């Protein structure tokens, strides 16, 4: 448990918070917020895996090419890994689509039962 593992531990803590909200909460909106937090914690963990320090020493930079095509090799030596960031971009939009689906389900459940309490939804006969 060195200090370098602290970002990973905090991202895992965020994942646990989201999971707790899904499992232990009764209100449907709080469960939806738990689903969102779980999704963002997974995306954050993926971006953190792409961090690397340059082998020549010094601080790593963002993988954005600002000097033109002839500086590509110099950038590749000091930049962090750009592939996890590109994949997490699509994952964030997928999280948006999952949010839209879950919110549509919540709207429909509210119209059918008149409440957001999941304990009551087991007792009412609709």
């Amino acid at each position, binding site marked *: 448990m060195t200090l370098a593992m602290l970002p990973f531990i905090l991202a895992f803590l965020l994942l646990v918070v989201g999971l707790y909200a899904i499992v232990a909460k009764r209100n449907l909106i709080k469960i939806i917020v738990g689903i969102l937090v779980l999704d963002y914690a997974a995306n954050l963990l993926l971006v953190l895996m792409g961090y690397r320090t340059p082998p020549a020493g010094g601080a790593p930079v963002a993988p*954005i090419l600002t000097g033109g095509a002839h500086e590509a090799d110099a950038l590749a030596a000091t930049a962090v890994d750009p592939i996890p960031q590109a994949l997490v971009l*699509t994952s964030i939009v997928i999280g*948006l*689509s999952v949010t*839209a689906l879950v*919110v*549509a389900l919540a*709207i429909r459940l*509210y*119209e059918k039962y008149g409440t957001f309490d999941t304990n009551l939804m087991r007792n009412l006969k609709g």
Partner: protein
Amino acid sequence: MQGMSLIVKTVTRLVAGFIVLFGAYIVLYGHLTPGGGFTGGVILAGGLALVVLAFGEDYARNVLTHSWARVGDTMGALLFLLVAVLGFVGGVFFTNFLPVGAVGRLVSAGTIPVSNLAIGIKVGAGLFGVFVALAVFRRTAAGGQEPGQSIEPDA
């Protein structure tokens, strides 16, 4: 869902074109700058949702209808499938058959800009269709109905 005040409508008329243009820029320059099909499609859907919110649901029934969202959705998917099947020209499914130009030019990187365009159209139309289905469709009354009745689109 009614439209908003005159100030919002006037500003939306001025700004909505620029939002769609910005979304198209993010989609087309996806192989050079951060972005690509997914984020550009989200910006496009946001611009269209702004127009529907500002002008009311009559605009969403007559001009930017749900059928246009469906057409855009399927056209994006078919274009992506066309890019993959045309890879047979190069010999293998989904291989690159366009010339790979110099690094940093706009016309470069093979079939990646075409894939970005297909995904941008599909994500924009799909998310706009989700927004229209959630906000514009008229829903039947809650409580005291059979389980068979469900969300229905208007006439």
